[in-house]
């Protein structure tokens, strides 16, 4: 445990005092027997808090982040602790404050820009893509943009089309950006810290419905130097019959589907992508080479989605290993409807994942056969 921490600390260049403090924390925690639980909201809040405290160049900017404690209370207590110079409430102008953030990053600060939802990042997308993402390349490395764009992504509950789109595929297709999608509290903490420390622009896609969910966290996760590597997926559950990839909220659904499949004798390997760009092709391919079947799960629209990219990657690298066609589970190809019954069928459900896994294992007739 300590060895792992030491290695992680070394690769992140954390000053010694944090490291020592971390060791003390770990030492005390490893003696306790009760597992600690933490909500994703607390995980994000603590990650922001620790990074702001460690580096005075980090600051938070967005609508309602200060006085209101955050539109979803992610930045609770931060204004009080760090003051209005580090936690900035902005007027309603995504294009405005995103531009300001990019400018601040150009000049050496480390802004964390919060969008109330990523749907509103559309009003600022020129700054994100044309300025933040492309500057490092276009200047041959002279300009660095250490900025983080974060906020809830994907469907919430009953908020209609303009508040529910998943932008993983949009941002994931753009070179120059790193795109992360955490699931659990451990993911949230580790990936947000990695994102803030990263010298490149990072798009951090959270999920509103996951904010209140609690996950057990290890002592290592609670350490202030904890940090997850960007570009590595996590095998949440090992299996041997079918690989199911997912990210963000869909990981939870996929784990539930895996439980149901296990009862029917299908052992599913669940991969939590964590990182949309760079995509961990190595882990996915290694898993497919083991199981020979693949189901991709995502919340967003099917066309040009994350699943399409994973499918292409597997075909390129592991075609001979596939025993069945790749199954792609995605949201319905319509703007998200509002009514609860329509919304339920527009977003993938656990049964859809189970059915797809079974089709992949030839346990049920394929869609083509029944058509």
């Amino acid at each position, binding site marked *: 445990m300590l060895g792992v921490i030491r290695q992680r600390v070394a690769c992140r260049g954390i000053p010694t005092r944090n490291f020592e403090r971390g060791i003390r924390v770990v030492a005390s925690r490893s003696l306790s027997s009760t597992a600690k639980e933490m909500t994703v909201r607390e995980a994000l809040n603590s990650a922001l808090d620790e990074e702001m405290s460690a580096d005075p160049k980090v600051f938070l900017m967005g609508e309602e982040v200060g006085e209101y404690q955050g539109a979803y209370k992610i930045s609770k207590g931060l204004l009080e602790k760090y003051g209005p110079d580090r936690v900035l409430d902005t007027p*309603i102008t995504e294009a405005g404050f995103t531009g300001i953030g990019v400018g601040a990053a150009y000049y050496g600060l480390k802004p964390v820009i919060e969008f109330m939802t990523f749907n509103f990042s559309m009003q600022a997308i020129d700054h994100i893509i044309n300025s933040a993402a492309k500057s490092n390349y276009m200047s041959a490395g002279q300009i660095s943009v250490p900025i983080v764009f974060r906020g809830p992504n994907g469907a919430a509950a009953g908020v209609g089309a303009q508040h529910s789109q998943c932008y993983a595929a949009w941002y994931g297709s753009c070179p120059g950006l790193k795109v992360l999608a955490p699931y659990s509290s451990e993911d949230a903490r580790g990936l947000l810290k990695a994102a803030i420390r990263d010298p490149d622009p990072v798009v951090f896609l959270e999920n509103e419905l996951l904010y209140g969910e609690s996950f057990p966290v290890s002592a290592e996760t609670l350490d202030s130097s904890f940090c997850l590597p960007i570009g590595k997926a996590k095998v949440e559950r090992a299996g041997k019959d079918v690989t199911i990839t997912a990210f963000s909220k869909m990981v939870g659904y996929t784990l539930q589907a895996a439980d149901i499949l296990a009862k029917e004798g299908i052992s599913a390997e669940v991969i939590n992508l964590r990182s949309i760009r760079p995509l961990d092709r190595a882990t996915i391919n290694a898993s497919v080479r083991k199981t020979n079947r693949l189901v991709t799960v995502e919340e967003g629209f099917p066309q040009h989605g994350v699943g399409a990219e994973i499918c292409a990657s597997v075909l390129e690298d592991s075609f001979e290993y596939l025993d069945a066609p790749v199954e792609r589970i995605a949201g319905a190809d319509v703007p998200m409807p509002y009514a609860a019954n329509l919304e339920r069928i527009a977003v993938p459900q656990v049964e859809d994942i189970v059915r797809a896994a079974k089709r992949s294992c030839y346990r049920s007739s394929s869609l083509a056969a029944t058509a």
Partner: protein
Amino acid sequence: MAIWLSRSKKIAHLLKPKIAYFPQPKIAPSEFSYKIYENHVNSSSFGTLSGENIRSPHVFLDNSATMSALNRQWRRTESTRAGEQVETVPYSDDNYEDENQALDFPGGRVSFTHEMKFISEAADKRIPCYRVLSDDGYPIAGSRFEQVDKETAVKMYKSMVTLQIMDNIFYEAQRQGRISFYLTSTGEEAINIATAAALTSDDVILPQYREPGILLWRGFTLQEFANQCFGNSADYGKGKQMPIHYGSNKHNFFTISSPIATQLPQAAGVAYSLKMDKKEACVVAFTGDGGTSEGDFHAGLNFAAVMDAPVLFICRNNGWAISTPISEQFRSDGVVVKGQAYGIRSIRVDGNDALAVYNTIRAAREMVIHEQKPVLVEALSYRVGHHSTSDDSTKYRPVDEIEHWKTARNPLARFRKWVHKNGWWTDDEESELRGSIRKQVKYFINAAYFFL
């Protein structure tokens, strides 16, 4: 023009720099525009507001003046370097009584000044706010306004009451879990209804989201409101849009869109199309104080002015954008001063005075349609309710402030007093109306379940 050219050629021989001299009028534009605002408060006609193009200078040719200017120019005490032998002219007519000299730049002629004078970031006085009724419902002495007839006034008052009660009950319904979301217009009923009353049904509305009163006035039924909020099969949107995002083709009301201020450049586009149709109608686009911070506000107003689009921009300045007070939203004197920056005629009105709003919108609409150019109206008010059901405003503003605006500055109370004084409304009718509306709203909410 030819005469000038030949003269200036002669002059050019004498002077190093080649500059044409055109006298300018002596009025400082900023002074002139303030006069217009002050007059309006007291004026007996709306004539002063319309028509005059304050920017057209009186260009006249005066030979002797030019020669004396040349003589002044030629004084040896001044610098003889090229480009600096420019006759400087003060912005006001304090020092020189003769002609002002100016230069043609792209965008028009500007006169020179030798005084480096920065325009102050704040005027000495804030732009005054047009109002007609006092807090007690008495017409203010000296104010002239178009009289509203009994039928319209009573309909206006009844609609304001209906809007208020509808908001209260739907808000409670959300709290009970019957609908997922709601957003009230409490405190801004006068803006909603008086504006609707002043427009015609042909005027196209592009709302923000706090203007359901316009739909109410135009005939959208309580059942239709309930259907949309419940997203049932009778909803025109068929459950595809969130609650309070009403829209109706037949009422000329564009569907409400969640991203802020996107409707402003879209309004300029709609108006451009309307202009080609040559209809006796205009586009009315709403935004709040928060929405004026969006880039789309700039694009919308700028282009409406450039395209001479018949848009009436109404900004509901209610003091709060969720938790952001206007002191953190902008540093300008509200939104009305931004109009002139775009070349748009603007006015500030007391949004809690239904009669003032009615008169202002009537006048503004006439200007927009007959002159085919945009107008900006800033209606000052207060957002009494929370931003929406997802907000608790007591967390960022004092409760007694909310109470003050809810009671002492209530727009309904003020208008009721005026209607009552005219003998057009009684207390019995009041209680009967309120009881009836409450019953109806509850009935339609229950009925909405049948279509789920």
